[in-house]
């Protein structure tokens, strides 16, 4: 595709429910990143994928958060037992390379998650 796409664009859920957010990176981009942006704040790094593996999961806020990537393409961020503090915009980005490269990251439009 022309750019990074994310779905859904908006998700409203009830506290305690699980949600799944999807990211389709730019074709050929081996590196994929997830960020969280709380209202009025900057971006908070969550996780990085190089290919299908995630060398750094240290940014995930808790064990309720997990992510996977298959086929060096689509990635899914799953939040289990959602809490109100999980409400934020979740942004996905991809780049040609992660470590060792100076390529810019291209961002998707984000998924706005609201936990009631």
């Amino acid at each position: 595709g022309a750019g990074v796409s994310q779905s859904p664009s908006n998700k409203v859920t009830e506290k305690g429910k699980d949600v799944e957010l999807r990211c389709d990176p730019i074709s050929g981009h081996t590196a994929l990143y997830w960020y969280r942006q709380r209202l009025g704040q900057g971006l908070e790094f969550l996780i990085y994928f190089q290919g299908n593996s995630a060398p750094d999961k240290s940014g995930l806020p808790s064990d309720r958060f997990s992510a996977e990537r298959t086929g060096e393409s689509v990635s899914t961020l799953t939040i289990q037992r959602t809490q109100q503090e999980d409400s934020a915009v979740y942004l996905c980005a991809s780049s040609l390379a992660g470590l060792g490269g100076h390529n810019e990251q291209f961002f998707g439009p984000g998924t706005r998650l609201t936990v009631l």
Partner: protein
Amino acid sequence: AQSVAQPEDQVNVAEGNPLTVKCTYSVSGNPYLFWYVQYPNRGLQFLLKYITGDNLVKGSYGFEAEFNKSQTSFHLKKPSALVSDSALYFCAVREESSYKLIFGSGTRLLVRP
């Protein structure tokens, strides 16, 4: 540890005037520096980057940024602001040996007609 500071929450300028959005950084090695812009209800768009070479970097939409190693700054500039430049601007830094982009807290630019 890497960090980025954007000291101004908001910058107000009149259309046609020059604008500057400030950014300072801290890294232990050589920095890769980036500016992104975020329009309402849209994702971040890449504006420009500094990797090496000329300290003055030119980017999209007439923006430029100057890398100053001694002051560890990477301020974003534009000679003549447009109302359509009004948006949220983020500075980001990555160490040469890292993959992680560290973002500043963002600066809201408001260009009045």
